[in-house]
C-alpha cells in the first residue's frame, strides 16, 4: 500500500469512527489491516552467553537486557516490576554480578555472560538456594522471587557463610511487597522455619507444608500475565491525563494513526464502554471527559510492538481546558468548591441520600456528662499505595465473539462477570485465565480498566493485545488506601470505663467511589454511647479503594492512639485499659462465634513481658529513646458462597476451584483441606485453578474469604464423594467419580472475626528523627491454622507492610498543580530488606464450629494494629504523639521540638 492511499484510508476511518461508538465500528476494514512496519531502529549484532548458551543476535540498540531476555529469548522468569532500577524483580547476573536488567541495554551485554533464574538449576537439580526458598517459604506471590534468588546467589557466591546483615545488605536492592523479607533471609541463612500448630494437627490440615507450586515460583516457570505471548499479538499503551481536573476540548489522533505499525487508537469518541466496577455510584468510562485525576486514561494505542505504541502516544495531540480541582477531602465539602462529580463532593449513601454514613447507639451528651476525662484529637492518614510487585497487565484475545483474557486478578469469577457486563456479552463468551499473579492486596478484586482496554483494543484490531502498565501508571491509575481525617472525642470515667465515643471522619476517595471509604475500629470497644459519622468524599486525587484490611489500619491507628492517650491521662497501663474496655460483642451488640481478643492480649503481653517493659512515658530527651506500644485489631471472617468440584480417577483427586492464589498459598491450603476431607495424601491431590473454563465459581482472594468460602465447598463436595464411594461398597475400581458443592453457610445473629494484638519496642533517635523497630510480636487468632508455615509468612508480611505505612510510605501531591510527585518505589519509599525487622508470630487456635476445620482468616488482620502499635510506642518513648502519617523524620523532629 502506498503511503498516500494508506493515509487517506485511515483519515476516512477516523471520520467514520468519530461519528459512532464502540462496539459497532472498527478502525480498519477486514482485509485492509494497517500492517505497515515501522522503519528499522538502529541495530547491532551482539554475541553473548545466556545461561551458558551462546547467542549471536541482531538487537535494536534501544532494547533493554530484560527486553531481550523476555521478549526475544522467551526467558520470562526474569520479571519487570518497575523498569527503572528501583525494585529488583529484573535482577540477573552479568559476568557473575547482580544487575538490574531493565537498566542495561542488551547491546551493552555484548561479549558478556548473563545468568538468569532459568540458569540456576542444573537440569532437574535445583540450586540449594532454590530448595531453601521452597522449604523456607520464600516466595509468596513469587513475582520478586527470581530477583531475590539472583541477589541471594551473588551473596553466597562471594561469601559462603554470610552473616544475616550481609545477606540483607546483599539483597537490599530487591523489594518484596508481600514483604516476606524474614523468610528470604532465613532461607539464605539456612535457618529452617519453626512454626507449628498448637492444636493437635489433623492428618494434613494443621501441618506445615511448602507451597505445592513453590517449585514453579523459584524456577521462573510460573507464568504470570506479562509472560503470556500469543501469535500476532499487538502491544498497547495508554495516555493519561497530566491534569487533576480538565475538560478535553480536542484530541487529534491523525499522526498516530499514520504511523506505520499503529493499528488502533481509541479515545472517548470511539469508545463509550463503562468500567462498572470502577465506580459504584457514577458512570466511569474507560476514557473520561472531563478527566478527574492525574492518571485518568485519555486514549489507548495498539501497535505492532511496545516501542511503536509508545511513540504513537507522543504524537497524539490532546487539548485540555484545566478546571478547578480539590485534593483535600475536608476542603472538598466546603461551599464554593468545585464539584468533582455532578451533585456534590459528598459521595451518596447506598440509599442515594447525600449524607454521611452514620452509626450510633446511646446518647453522647449523657456519655460526656458521665466522663471525668475527655480526649479530643485529630488523626490524618495518607494515600498509601498497594504497590504490588506485578503492575497491572492484560492479554486479550478474541476468537470470533469469544474473549479469552489473561489477567493478574484476585478473582477470575468476578472478572468474568464484570467483563461480560461491561462489554455487554454473555458471561459464557468470556474466559478469564490467571495462572500466577504478582500480588494485589485488594486492588485487583474485580475486573480492571486495563482488562477492558486490552479487550476493546483487541476487538477493534482483530488481533490479540497485550497491555502492561508502567510502574508510574500503576501508582497513579490503580487505587491505594484512602486517606482519612479522623476527629475523635472520647470520654471515660475516673475508673477507666469508656462513657462516650465519637468519631467524625472524612475519607478521600478520589473522583470515583470504588469502595466503602469506611473508618473502622471503634466497634472493638464496649461503650454505651457511640456515634460514628464518616463522609466518603470525592476529590481530584487518584482513586482510593481497597488495600489490605481496607478500613482498619488507618481507623485503628486513630482510635487506638486516642485510647492510649486516654489511658495515659487516667494514669492506667494501656494493657489494663484495653482489658477493661473490650467488648465480647461486635459493636457491643452482636455476639462472636468465638472470641479470643482478650487471650491475644494477655498471652501476647506475657510473651512480650509487657508488665516489666512498659513504663509511664516520662518525656525524657535521651539521644535514643526506647518505648513500647501495643494495639489490637479484628477482621471479619465471613462465611459465604463458593463452589468446588472434586474428580476422583484412578485413586487421584483433581480439585477444581476458581482460585488464583495471590501469594496467600490458597492452592496449598485448599489441597490440604481436600486431602484431609478425603483421607488422602497431599501428593495425591492435583489442583486445577485460575481458569473460568475449567473451574467453578470462587469468591475470589479478597476480603480474606477463600479459606472459609471455598474450603467449605471442598469439604461438602468431599462428603458427597465419600458417600458415592461408600455406596459402591468397595467396587470403585477405575470408575471415575465427580462431586460438586456450592454451599452458602450463614451465621444468623452472630459475628465471626479473627483477632490480633501486637506489641512493639521501638527506638527513637531524637537527634536524627529516626524510628527503628527493635522487637515486634504479633499475637493472632485466626481459627485453626491450615498451614502454619505459609500463615506465618502472611502475618510477617502484613506487619512489615504496616511498618511502611507507619514510617515512610505515602503518595505525595503537589498542592499547586494537583500532580503526584513521587509515584514509584523510589519516591514512595516502599519497605526494603533493610527496613524490615524480624517479626515474631504466634497463633491462638480456638475451635470455632463455623469454619472449615475451624479455620478463619489470615490475610488482612496482620496489617491492622501495626501503625497504632508503633505510634503508641513513639508516645511511650518520647511523650509526644505524631498525629499525621507517615511518621517521617520531619514529623519526629517537629513532634520533639
Amino acid at each position, binding site marked *: 500500500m502506498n503511503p498516500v492511499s494508506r493515509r487517506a484510508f485511515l483519515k476516512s476511518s477516523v471520520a467514520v469512527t468519530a461519528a459512532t461508538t464502540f462496539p459497532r465500528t472498527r478502525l480498519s476494514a477486514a482485509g485492509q489491516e494497517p500492517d505497515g512496519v515501522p522503519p528499522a531502529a538502529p541495530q547491532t549484532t551482539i554475541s553473548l552467553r545466556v545461561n551458558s548458551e551462546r547467542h549471536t543476535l541482531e538487537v535494536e*540498540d534501544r532494547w533493554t537486557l530484560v527486553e531481550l531476555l523476555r521478549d526475544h529469548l522467551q526467558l520470562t522468569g526474569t520479571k519487570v516490576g518497575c523498569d*527503572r532500577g528501583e525494585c*529488583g524483580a529484573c535482577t540477573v547476573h552479568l559476568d557473575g554480578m547482580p544487575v538490574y536488567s531493565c537498566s542495561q541495554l542488551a547491546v*551493552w551485554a555484548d561479549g558478556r555472560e548473563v545468568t538468569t533464574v532459568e540458569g540456576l538449576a542444573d537440569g532437574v537439580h535445583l540450586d540449594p538456594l532454590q530448595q531453601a526458598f521452597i522449604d523456607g517459604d520464600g516466595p509468596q506471590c513469587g513475582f520478586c522471587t527470581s530477583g531475590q534468588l539472583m541477589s541471594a546467589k551473588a551473596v553466597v557466591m562471594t561469601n559462603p557463610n554470610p552473616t544475616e546483615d550481609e545477606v540483607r545488605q546483599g539483597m537490599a536492592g530487591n523489594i518484596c511487597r508481600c514483604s516476606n523479607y524474614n523468610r528470604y533471609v532465613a532461607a539464605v541463612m539456612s535457618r529452617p522455619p519453626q512454626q507449628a500448630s498448637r492444636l493437635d494437627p489433623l492428618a494434613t490440615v494443621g501441618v506445615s507444608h511448602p507451597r505445592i507450586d513453590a517449585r514453579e515460583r523459584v524456577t521462573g516457570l510460573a507464568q504470570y500475565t506479562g509472560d503470556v505471548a500469543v501469535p500476532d499479538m499487538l502491544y498497547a499503551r495508554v495516555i493519561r491525563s497530566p491534569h487533576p481536573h480538565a475538560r478535553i476540548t480536542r484530541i487529534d489522533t491523525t499522526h498516530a494513526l499514520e504511523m506505520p505499525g499503529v493499528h488502533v487508537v481509541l479515545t472517548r469518541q470511539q469508545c463509550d464502554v463503562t468500567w462498572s466496577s470502577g465506580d459504584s455510584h457514577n458512570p466511569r468510562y474507560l476514557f473520561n471527559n472531563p478527566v478527574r485525576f492525574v492518571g485518568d486514561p485519555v486514549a489507548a494505542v495498539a501497535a505492532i510492538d511496545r516501542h511503536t505504541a509508545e511513540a504513537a502516544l507522543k504524537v497524539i495531540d490532546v487539548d485540555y481546558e484545566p478546571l478547578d480541582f480539590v485534593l483535600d477531602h475536608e476542603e472538598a465539602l466546603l461551599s464554593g468548591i468545585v464539584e468533582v462529580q455532578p451533585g456534590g463532593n459528598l459521595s451518596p449513601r447506598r440509599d442515594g441520600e447525600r449524607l454521611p454514613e452514620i452509626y450510633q447507639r446511646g446518647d453522647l451528651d449523657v456519655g460526656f456528662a458521665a466522663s471525668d476525662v475527655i480526649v479530643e484529637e485529630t488523626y490524618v492518614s495518607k494515600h498509601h499505595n498497594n504497590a504490588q510487585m506485578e503492575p497491572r497487565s492484560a492479554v486479550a484475545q478474541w476468537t470470533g465473539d469469544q474473549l479469552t483474557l489473561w489477567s493478574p486478578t484476585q478473582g477470575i469469577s468476578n472478572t468474568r462477570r464484570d467483563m461480560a457486563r461491561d462489554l455487554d456479552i454473555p458471561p459464557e463468551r468470556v474466559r478469564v485465565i490467571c495462572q500466577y499473579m504478582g500480588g494485589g492486596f485488594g486492588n485487583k478484586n474485580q475486573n480492571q480498566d486495563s482488562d477492558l482496554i486490552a479487550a476493546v483494543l483487541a476487538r477493534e484490531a482483530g488481533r490479540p493485545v497485550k497491555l502492561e502498565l508502567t510502574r508510574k501508571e500503576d501508582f497513579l491509575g490503580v487505587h491505594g488506601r484512602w486517606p482519612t481525617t479522623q476527629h475523635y472525642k472520647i470520654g471515660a470515667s475516673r475508673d477507666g470505663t469508656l462513657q462516650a465515643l465519637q468519631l467524625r471522619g472524612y475519607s478521600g476517595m478520589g473522583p470515583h467511589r470504588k469502595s466503602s471509604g469506611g473508618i473502622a475500629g471503634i466497634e472493638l470497644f464496649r461503650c454505651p454511647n457511640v456515634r460514628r459519622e464518616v463522609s466518603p468524599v470525592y476529590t481530584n486525587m487518584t482513586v482510593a479503594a481497597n488495600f489490605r484490611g481496607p478500613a482498619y489500619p488507618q481507623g485503628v491507628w486513630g482510635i487506638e492512639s486516642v485510647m492510649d492517650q486516654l489511658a495515659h491521662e487516667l494514669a492506667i497501663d494501656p494493657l489494663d485499659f484495653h482489658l477493661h474496655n473490650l467488648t465480647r460483642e461486635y459493636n457491643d451488640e452482636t455476639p462472636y462465634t468465638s472470641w479470643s481478643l482478650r487471650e491475644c492480649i494477655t498471652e501476647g503481653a506475657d510473651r512480650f513481658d509487657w508488665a516489666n517493659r512498659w513504663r509511664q512515658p516520662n518525656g525524657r530527651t535521651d539521644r535514643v529513646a526506647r518505648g513500647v506500644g501495643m494495639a489490637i485489631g479484628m477482621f471479619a471472617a465471613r462465611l459465604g458462597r463458593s463452589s468446588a468440584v472434586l474428580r476422583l480417577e484412578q485413586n487421584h483427586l483433581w480439585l477444581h476451584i476458581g482460585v488464583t492464589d495471590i501469594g496467600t498459598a490458597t492452592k496449598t491450603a485448599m489441597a490440604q483441606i481436600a486431602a484431609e476431607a478425603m483421607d488422602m495424601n497431599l501428593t495425591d491431590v492435583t489442583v486445577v485453578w485460575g481458569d473460568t473454563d475449567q473451574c467453578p465459581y470462587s469468591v475470589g482472594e479478597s476480603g480474606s474469604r477463600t479459606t472459609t468460602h471455598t474450603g467449605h465447598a471442598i469439604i461438602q463436595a468431599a462428603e458427597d464423594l465419600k458417600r458415592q464411594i461408600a455406596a459402591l461398597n468397595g467396587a470403585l475400581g477405575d470408575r471415575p467419580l465427580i462431586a460438586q458443592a456450592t454451599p452458602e453457610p450463614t451465621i444468623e445473629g452472630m459475628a465471626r472475626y479473627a483477632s490480633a494484638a501486637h506489641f512493639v519496642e521501638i527506638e527513637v533517635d531524637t537527634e536524627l528523627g529516626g524510628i527503628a523497630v527493635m522487637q515486634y510480636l504479633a499475637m493472632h487468632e485466626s481459627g485453626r491454622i491450615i498451614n502454619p508455615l505459609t500463615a506465618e509468612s502472611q502475618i510477617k508480611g502484613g506487619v512489615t507492610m504496616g511498618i511502611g505505612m507507619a514510617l515512610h510510605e505515602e503518595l505525595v501531591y503537589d498542592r499547586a498543580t494537583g500532580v503526584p510527585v513521587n509515584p514509584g518505589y523510589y519516591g514512595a519509599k516502599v519497605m526494603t530488606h533493610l527496613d524490615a525487622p524480624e517479626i515474631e508470630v504466634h497463633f491462638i487456635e480456638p475451635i470455632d464450629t463455623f469454619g472449615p476445620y475451624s479455620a478463619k482468616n489470615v490475610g488482612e488482620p496482620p496489617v491492622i494494629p501495626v501503625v497504632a502499635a508503633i505510634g503508641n510506642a513513639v508516645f511511650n518513648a518520647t511523650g509526644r504523639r505524631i498525629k499525621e502519617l507517615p511518621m517521617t*523524620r520531619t514529623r519526629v*523532629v*517537629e513532634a520533639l521540638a
Partner: protein
Amino acid sequence: MRRLTNVNPASLVESVERLTADGTRAAVVGGGTDLLGMIKDDLVPTEVLVNLKGLTERGSLDLVETEPVGIRIGGLVTLAQLSTHPLVTAQYRGLAEAAGSAATPQIRNVGTVAGNICQRPWCWYFRQNFPCYKHGGNRCFSRVGENEFNAIFGGGPSYIVHPSDTAPALITLGANFRIVGPSGERVISASDFFTLPRTDVSRENILEPNEVLANIYVPSTPGLRSTYAKVLDREAWTHAVTSVALALEMDGNVVSRASIVLGGVAPIPWPLKAVEELLAGQRITESLAAEAGRLAVDGAQPLSKNGYKVTLTENLVRNTLQSLANEV
C-alpha cells in the same frame, strides 16, 4: 523507548569527537542505569549513547592505581569496586563508605564513580518532568511545594540538592579531576567542579557536554582519617536527607587540618569552611563538636517543609566529628 544509537568508541579521544559531533543528542554512558531511566521518562533528549564501557583502549579508566603521592581512580571504576578496593579502604575510608552507601548492590555493580559525581538531581519535580529551571522552565516548583528533601543551603533560583555520595567525600580528600575534552585535557580541583544554580541553573557542574570526567587523583596525606555519614528516609535505595563527609589530619589528638563537606542539603556538595577553621589546631571536645554543629548550619535557609534538615545536619555534624575524633 525512543530510537537510540549505541556507539562504542575506540578511545577517549574518539568519544569526545562523537560527543562533539552529536551535541545535545549525545550522552556519555558509564553505568547507564540513571541515564536509561531519564531517557525512558523523557527527562533528557539523548539519542546517541557514547558507551565508555565499550572502549577498546580503556587505559586507566577502570583501574584504581597508586600514584607517587596518592591514588588515581579511573572514572569507570564502579561504586562496588571503589567501596572494597584495598587502596581505597586502607587510606580513604570516607570514600569507601560513601561509595558503598549509594543506591543498591545492583546499581553499585554497574554505576561508575564518574557517573555518581555527575548524577542529575533526584528532586521529585525534576524527575516528574515538571517544567522547572532544570528542564528549561522559569520556576522552581519545590521552592513553595513539596520541598521536604530540597536545599537548605545555596538554593535559588533552583532548590535541588546534589545527590552524589562520593563527591563530598572526594572534596574532603582534596581530590582533583582529570577532564578530557575536544581541546585536550585539564585538571580541576573537585571543590571547583560543581556549579551553583545562581551561576548556571541548567547544570550541576562545569563539565561541558563534550567532555568526559576521566580520572580522579586523590593525594595521600599522612595521619588522615576520614568518614562519611548519611541519614536516609528509608534504609536502602534513596538519597541522603543529609550527609557529612569528614576528613581530619590528626597530630596526636589535635586536629591539624579538617575538611568537612555536606551532601544532600545544597545544589552542590556544601563545604563548611568556617567549621574547618574552627577545628584547625584544636582538640575535639564535646563542646567544640557542639559548636561545630551549630556553626555548620549557620546561615541555613530552610524552605517550608525542610526545617528538620537543619536540626539533623547540626546533630549529624556534631556526632560524626566526635566519633571520628575519638577513634583510636
